[in-house]
């Protein structure tokens, strides 16, 4: 898959996720109507309105929410290193043909980076102070190219939307589970004798509410994992140098402390797992299901292979 196919694929996936999300809210609302209020449209209408509002806010200001949650600040141009980072973004942006994204620094000593926004015209790149301190110019360039390719193929829109919507689902499931407990107690004695079919429906509905947040998180992780390899490869192609990113990833991996400034909800948009979870280092079923990122050694190996191919294609100097 190349970057243009990926872009098309991402646009479709974004729509799909939004539709699934709204249907999910609708089901929760209908269930609420059927089993508790008895007046059909109230719960459904409220649920769908909430879903619509959260889709719109996460589309238009998901990036601001994500950035604010990490405490990101503007670049200080009088600091040589931070100014160099800004310069690097300007350089790599030229080779990608993208408009200039907004550039932020996150005050956190653990090395990490992410990009967010809804399209290339409204995009941001943020890196931690730790990353800035640990990487040299070439390595920073690799990281910036990786993030810019997330921007170029619209990964950022999909990921930011998912970040916001997963948050909303977790919140809603939590809230409806709590309100159900209260309602259930009050109504249990006065309930009209519903058929066995209704009980089964109720069980399915309850199951859906319980399983939804877990499914949503697994989905977010799967979506992000696949995209990291592609961003590594197309970033390397953007600057014609895979080795800078390879050595940057090795440095990030060796400092595997958790990035405190980056909360769980935005883990999947970062260049490396900010929670410092050890199973990103392994392959296997559980690791595959739960990790937001592919194993670091495999990513580094693929980049080095690219580097080797580039070198062997060039005439000997």
């Amino acid at each position, binding site marked *: 898959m190349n970057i243009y196919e990926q872009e098309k694929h991402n646009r479709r996936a974004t729509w799909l996720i939004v539709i699934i999300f709204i249907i999910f809210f609708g089901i929760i609302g209908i269930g609420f109507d059927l089993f508790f209020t008895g007046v059909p449209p109230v719960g459904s209408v409220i649920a769908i309105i909430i879903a619509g509002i959260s889709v719109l806010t996460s589309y238009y200001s998901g990036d601001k929410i994500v950035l604010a949650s990490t405490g990101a600040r503007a670049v200080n141009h009088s600091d040589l290193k931070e100014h160099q980072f800004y310069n*690097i973004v*300007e*350089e790599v942006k030229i080779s990608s043909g993208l408009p200039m994204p907004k550039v932020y620094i996150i005050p956190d000593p653990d090395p990490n980076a992410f990009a967010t926004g809804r399209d290339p015209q409204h995009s941001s790149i943020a890196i931690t102070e730790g990353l800035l301190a640990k990487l040299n110019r070439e390595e920073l360039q690799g990281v910036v190219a990786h993030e810019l390719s997330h921007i170029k193929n619209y990964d950022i829109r999909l990921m930011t939307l998912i970040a916001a919507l997963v948050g909303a689902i977790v919140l809603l499931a939590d809230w409806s589970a709590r309100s159900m407990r209260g309602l259930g107690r009050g109504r249990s004695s006065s309930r009209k004798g519903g058929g066995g079919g209704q009980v089964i429906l109720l069980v399915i509905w309850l199951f859906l509410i319980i399983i939804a947040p877990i499914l949503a998180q697994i989905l977010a992780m799967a979506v992000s994992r696949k995209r990291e390899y592609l961003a590594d490869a197309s970033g390397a192609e953007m600057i014609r140098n895979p080795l800078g990113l390879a050595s940057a990833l090795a440095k990030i991996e060796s400092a595997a402390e958790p990035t405190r400034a980056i909360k769980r909800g935005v883990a999947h948009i970062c260049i490396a797992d900010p929670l410092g979870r050890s199973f990103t280092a392994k392959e296997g079923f559980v690791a595959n299901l739960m990790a937001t990122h592919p194993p670091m050694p495999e990513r580094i190996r693929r980049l080095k292979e690219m580097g080797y191919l580039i070198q062997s294609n060039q005439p000997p100097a």
Partner: protein
Amino acid sequence: MSILLVVLGAVALVVLIVVVWVIAAYNGLVGLRNTVKNAWSQIDVQLKRRYDLIPNLVETVKGYAKHENTTFENIAKARSACMSASAAGAVGELGKAEGTLMQALKSLFMVVENYPELKANQNFLALQEELSSTENRVSFARQFYNDNVMRLNNAVQMFPSNIIAGMFGFKPAEFFEIESGEEKKAPKVQF
């Protein structure tokens, strides 16, 4: 009667397909040509930025290394050659002049190696960062330009879009290659 209608319909369909294809191919070529133009202007912006930075850098170095006049003169000469080639819009000539300028700058940084105080100077470090960033910008802008020149040239020369290109006078664009002395030298083999 009905056979005639079918034949007429088929002919009309073919004509329609051809017309749609011609429009699409023409628009595609215009799009590519505009991208190439835009990519060139980006190179131009970055080159100008570099020509503006060089005198500042030279002045800073002069403050520490007063007796390196040949190096300074070489840079000034190469820079003005570049500027006139860029003003004339001569892609090939500019490539050669840029190569000379790169060599001259390289020898400037070799001179700097002999002055440890200069290497620690904040002003110099900032200028050096600006210059290396600008050099990267030039090379990325060049990469973007050359990629698009290749796409334009493929469209202009490959069948069947070359028919449209010929009809409307689209010409292949020139690659921008910087000829540094080193790259052109054949590898020395010693036994």
